[in-house]
């Protein structure tokens, strides 16, 4: 497989770090090599939070990249910062509930999802990140839905186990929103 080099970016609080962790953990359950690297430090307050996820069949060298081939953009500063970096032919998923402008890139595949509206229909705005995750896995095939389900089962335990179904619904809704 081609190495998936994903950068997921947004405001702190939009759940981009969790989104990245779920993808990386799903990759593990799919039997892949995977790394999750967060941005950390003072730039997270009010600025962009981002993480880098790498998924590969082979052992992973670099857990960082300045030229991802996949990008998840949850806010405008992230679009401005990272759209320059994505490789030609790459895949970008944009959360249009927050990002109300167009990408300047013409040489990549762009998928726009009103993740907030989809999440609202499901009755919980907090799962907007998982709607985006659904769109991302539908368009890149980076990880399987089954892997994502196992990642939720690992992360959401005890009282939170009730939230697994909702999160899976959100992922499926995201997949459907991009036509799958």
């Amino acid at each position: 497989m081609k190495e998936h080099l994903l950068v997921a970016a947004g405001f702190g609080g939009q759940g981009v770090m969790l989104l990245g962790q779920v993808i990386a953990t799903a990759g593990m359950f799919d039997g892949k090599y995977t790394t999750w690297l967060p941005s950390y430090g003072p730039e997270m307050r009010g600025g962009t939070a981002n993480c880098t996820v790498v998924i590969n069949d082979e052992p992973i060298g670099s857990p960082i990249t300045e030229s991802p081939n996949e990008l998840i953009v949850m806010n405008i500063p992230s679009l401005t910062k990272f759209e320059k970096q994505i490789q030609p032919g790459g895949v970008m998923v944009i959360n249009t509930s927050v990002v109300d402008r167009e990408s300047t890139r013409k040489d990549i595949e762009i998928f726009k999802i009103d993740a907030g509206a989809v999440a609202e229909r499901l009755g919980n705005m907090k799962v907007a990140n998982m709607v985006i995750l659904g769109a991302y896995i539908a368009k890149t095939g980076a990880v399987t839905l089954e892997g994502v389900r196992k990642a939720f089962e690992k992360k959401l335990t005890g009282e939170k186990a009730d939230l697994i179904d909702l999160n899976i619904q959100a992922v499926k809704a995201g997949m459907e929103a991009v036509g799958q």
Partner: protein
Amino acid sequence: MAEKVMVKGNEAMAEAAVRAGCRIYFGYPITPQSEFIEYMARRMPQIEGVFLQSESEVAAVNMVYGAACTGNRVMTSTSSPGFSLMQEGVSYIAGAMLPAVFVNVVRGGPGLGDIQPAQSDYFQATKGGAHGDYHLIVLAPGSIQESVDLMEDAFRMADEYRMPVLILADGMLGQMMEPVEFPEFVKLEGINDHSAWALRGATGREANKVTSFDIDPVNLEKMNIFIQEIYKRIKAKEVRYETIGLEDAEYMLVGYGTMGRILGSVVKLARSKGIKVGLFRPITLWPFPYAELKKAAEGVKTILTVEMSMGQMVEDVRLAVEGSVPVQFYGRTGGMVPTPDEVLAELLKHV
């Protein structure tokens, strides 16, 4: 095969230490290492261990010194400025010949620096950060799994050679997550029988004495020579490194820790462009694999050493090859991490 779990580097190293038999931890929080001490705060009470958050790194290292006198497995973890504060205690522990494990999750320096990943503490780690003729065994994991695997070795070496061992990580290794398989718990019985010297109560026997002090220079020299004999054994037995693609390599990259693994990606990138590149990644920074590196460099045109510093390990690379191969250097510092594309561009300048 053990179950794989997705875990943060700091937490993985802490759990690995517990499984390696560490039941005593002292520390003081500092980014990007804080998840380590947080994990120990949760974990130690579950296994009837000792967890104590000290008032400073100076206190923490002296608590480690005290606990190490009993011969039990003890450790601390910190990040660069904190490890600087610990140096006096490290030297005393080395002088008193005590087993202890340190983890430095290195961040940008000098001074307070920043909290991003760096490798600018190499000199401090390998050339003696404090006073006296002493060394630490320095292990540099390139992945979270390797940091877990090396933890048991760290405690084993500390016990076997009665000396402090340092795991030199960096902020990236501490903060990132990767699937990890943990080893089984080490059986504590009999792993560290230090009854010949440890301070565990002297009822009914001669008192043991642990000290780094000897006022008689004749004796102090003897003690130093004795320690140097131990270092010779370590150099003969414990050198570790990894190589990738050196069989037909015309160019050799050298890097350690997470930089070393990033260079693994550069090897792939370069080879996809038809450039025959290999990688030499030292895993023990002390003892440094001088002879092994020199042998690996036979027949290569140029060596490019890459570090997250302004050039520290590169001095050992030059010592290793003794002028037989030109050694170039590329580094970023202050928390900046060279990316594979960036290193490839640098490599192409020398091809």
